[in-house]
């Protein structure tokens, strides 16, 4: 068998660095085989350039897929997405209002609407999610202190970022209107309350949909039981942790033996 031409060998060696270590040997073997067949057809220079692009994009796809699998549903991805959304909102407010001075130097009317809107949203969210938060805290009592601290830390940071995002999103909407009329204060209060309440509720819901051990989003929802057997067994949706820490049983209907979601350790 003829060896590969130097160009192909160099491109392969460089692109192999992009490929995750676990897949590298298989990837190299596959491409050596493909390139050998291609080389036999004596391809033109243009084909060689196309091939180099193919090798690079294949390696990049494998790397991207490995990153996707690693970070998909992870708490880090959640934080980064929230922080990036906040930065985007700040940029949009800057764009619409024409400078950071306007952003910092909020009018009394805006401050009042933010304060009122956020207070309404926080109060409503805290009252309506009190039971869910208590159940979540109860379910985590069996965890070691470091894991509990990690959970609380993640929740508080997520809640704070969600609150900031809700306020910033409202600011984007009103900065885009370019209006300082007094009548706008009521819609501002309502919209702030709605956005902030929405983001806070999402933060609480998202926390419940995560593994209590590793805080990754639960996956693989599957239907369990039958509604007609509700008096004999629970029926609803089961979501499992992809790292095998446990599963969350969410009943479709509240029963005396299972009123709410239950975390089951594997």
């Amino acid at each position: 068998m003829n060896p590969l031409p130097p160009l192909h060998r160099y491109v392969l060696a460089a692109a192999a660095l992009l490929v995750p270590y676990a897949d590298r040997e298989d990837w190299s073997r596959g491409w050596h085989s493909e390139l050998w067949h291609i080389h036999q057809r004596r391809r033109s220079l243009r084909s060689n350039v196309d091939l180099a692009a193919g090798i690079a994009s294949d390696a990049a796809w494998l790397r991207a897929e490995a990153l996707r699998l690693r970070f998909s549903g992870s708490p880090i991805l959640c934080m980064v997405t929230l922080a990036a959304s906040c930065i985007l909102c700040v940029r949009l407010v800057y764009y619409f209002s024409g400078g950071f001075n306007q952003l910092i130097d909020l009018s009394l009317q805006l401050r009042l609407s933010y304060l009122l809107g956020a207070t309404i949203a926080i109060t409503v969210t805290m009252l309506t999610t009190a039971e869910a938060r208590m159940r979540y805290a109860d379910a985590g009592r069996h965890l070691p202190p470091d894991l509990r601290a990690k959970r609380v830390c993640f929740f508080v940071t997520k809640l704070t970022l969600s609150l900031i995002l809700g306020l910033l999103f409202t600011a984007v909407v009103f900065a885009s209107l370019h209006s300082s009329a007094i009548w706008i204060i009521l819609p501002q209060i309502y919209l702030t309350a709605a956005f902030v309440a929405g983001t806070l509720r999402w933060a609480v819901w998202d926390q419940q949909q995560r593994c209590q051990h590793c805080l990754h989003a639960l996956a693989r929802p599957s239907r369990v039981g039958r509604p007609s057997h509700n008096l004999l067994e629970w029926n609803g949706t089961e979501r499992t942790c992809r790292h095998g820490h446990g599963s969350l049983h969410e009943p479709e209907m509240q029963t005396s033996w299972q009123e709410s979601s239950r975390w089951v350790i594997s």
Partner: protein
Amino acid sequence: MPLTRLSHSAALILKAISLGYSFGFDIMETTGLPSGTVYPALRRLERDKLVSSSWESESTASADQRPARRYYHLTREGKKAALFAVQRYPLLARLLPEKNS
């Protein structure tokens, strides 16, 4: 992967595999798609369990004096997807010839 989300190039590749073109270079030559499209698409199809792959035995490859090839086959879901692809893109059936041999 929902069948309705099958792209044109993925449909073309599935059709090529169903016609017997079973390794990367073969598929690339038949479909006329660039390597940068074919190889990542094959990986995506394998991830979505529409195709599976297996290495040819070293003894067969050595007898033909060439490196072993990685062959792609359609799974049951892949066969359904290939049929759906032809319904969705009727010209596919005319674009690719049946493989001889």
